[in-house]
């Protein structure tokens, strides 16, 4: 009798946790899902009731020159930041996971700092530095700032990837006659590729969506988030912003979902096939 009672309790608790989890997901996604919803709405007011279905905002988005320019800039900056951050992050991750060094914890902590300081402070500090150094504000300054944010993320992704795989694989390759470069090429790189692709996608997304640092470090060329910000004070433009937002969200969602899947699938595979 008591066994049945426990079972029912457990079932009850299982349900309540699951209910909570679903509700939480709804809370997490719902506000954001209104953006795509109203982007197809035939009205410049973002309010119920829905008026009608239209693509006009998407058409406006595609033909807006300022938007296209900002989009191009964001893609350019994002691509460069992704490649460079992944490179720096991978080197750092390799150093941290493969070598014994005194002060390693402190060094890692130092590299992680951009993740925990308020972005506004980082932004103004860089602005001040640029000003003092006579450096003009361009896409390069934005890119540099983004790298500071993306390198720690890339390092984190690569650390979790490298830690999951066997140090002795690289030693075995060295032992069998390959020098450091060939060992990297024949063993480390093939096994790390899922992590590298994930890092590229994630850092690209971060840079692409990043607003605060870009706000302080932009010159005449703007990125897409800055473009969105500039449009927010004009109500008639809002639906176009929604269309843009919806597009960005959908693409980001798939990019990131794919990256996360890659990253975690690889690590799990290693763990199960290990001795």
């Amino acid at each position, binding site marked *: 009798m008591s066994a049945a009672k426990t079972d029912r309790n457990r079932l009850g608790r299982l349900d309540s946790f699951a209910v909570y989890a679903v509700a939480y997901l709804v809370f997490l996604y719902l506000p954001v899902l209104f953006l795509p919803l109203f982007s197809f709405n035939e009205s410049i007011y973002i309010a119920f009731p829905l008026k009608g279905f239209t693509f006009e905002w998407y058409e406006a988005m595609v033909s807006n020159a300022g938007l296209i320019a900002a989009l191009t800039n964001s893609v350019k900056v994002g691509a460069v930041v992704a490649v460079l951050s992944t490179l720096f992050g991978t080197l750092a991750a390799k150093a941290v996971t493969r070598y014994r060094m005194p002060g390693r914890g402190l060094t890692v902590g130092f590299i992680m700092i951009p993740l925990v300081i308020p972005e506004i402070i980082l932004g103004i500090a860089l602005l001040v530095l640029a000003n003092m150094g006579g450096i003009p504000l361009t896409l390069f300054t934005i890119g540099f700032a983004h790298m500071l944010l993306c390198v720690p993320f890339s390092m984190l992704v690569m650390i979790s990837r490298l830690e999951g795989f066997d140090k*002795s694989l690289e030693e*075995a390759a*060295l032992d069998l*006659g390959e020098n450091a470069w060939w060992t990297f090429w024949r063993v480390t790189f093939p096994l790390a590729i899922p992590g590298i692709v994930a890092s590229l996608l994630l850092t690209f997304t971060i840079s692409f969506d990043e607003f605060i640092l870009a706000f302080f470090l932009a010159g005449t060329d703007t990125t897409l988030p800055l473009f969105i910000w500039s449009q927010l004070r004009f109500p008639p433009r809002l639906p176009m912003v929604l269309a843009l937002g919806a597009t960005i969200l959908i693409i980001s969602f798939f990019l990131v979902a794919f990256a996360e899947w890659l990253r975690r699938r690889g690590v799990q595979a290693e763990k199960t096939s290990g*001795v």
Partner: protein
Amino acid sequence: MSDTTFISIRGVTKDFGVVRAVDDVSLDVQRGEFFALLGPSGCGKTTLLRMLAGFEAPTKGEIFIDGQPMSAMPPHQRPVNMVFQNYAIFPHLDVRGNIAFGMRKSGLSKTELNAKVEETLEMIKLPGYAKRGANELSGGQRQRVALARALIKRPKVLLLDEPLGALDKKLREEMQLELRALQKSVGITFVFVTHDQEEALTMSDRIAVMSKGEVLQVEAPMRLYERPSSPFVADFIGTMNFFDGSVRALADGCATVDTGPLGEVRAQAEGEAPGVGERVVVAIRPEKMKLNFKAQGESVNSVQGRMGPAAYLGERSHFYVHLDGHDRPVAVAMQNMERPDVWAGQSDQPVWLSWSQDAVVLLRPE
């Protein structure tokens, strides 16, 4: 250094920060030898092996292989190959890819290489496995592929890090004999690390017993077992009975030792004999103790005790005899076929132990 010395380790010390893992070790390994580094975990044997491979650099001292100093040589240039403890099979390559991995610079054509791989597969008794994926292999198969991968390069020295640790008992015993046969047929110097003394005794030509970073004794298995040089080694290899005592007299290479509970013991005193009055440890192997239910009428190398617990192990049995004044029971091992009568004895029954003079090993106390 003799002509047959192949590996020479001279005064090698390795520190990891404040921890001294290897302490001033000097060793010689002969060409074609199957050499074991034996010791409990943390004794420095794996560190020493890794220094031979080049993955750690000695803090002090020098290593020579075939006369060449190794200090400036990184692992990929050394004429040494290693079989790792967890085998380190490349998961993204198949068996052929793994075995042929180190042959990229060998200059062989694709067909030649494939033939060589197949030949090596035959040698490790896995013919036709070339296309198998790495994660389709069992533990024992991985171990053999790791072995093949190293051997195909015909290194001057093969290093093995606890190669049989992950295998189950039966497989391990099989592999011990196979490895030994393999080594003899290929003629390569093997250096292997283990914490299993039975394994070391079975496979090696010589064993170096290590503890806390130091090498305590280097000896062939039989002599190591019969004539250990210290209580640690004596206890680590097989089981041993220990008794404290002091030397009463010394004459004609024979020492008379007073041991309290064990009575008067006469033993061979060879080499650096202890002096009169010195404290010694008397060590006697359990199988060298003779057990009788009647007094033997001897005053030396004999003592009376009481029968204690017994353990039956199939081919042999272990009996434990209590001695007055000795806190631990004396272990006595006997083949059941030879002495079926002992099991008829009763607990606490008086028994007499005796042993021969050359069964006694005299050791310096630690």
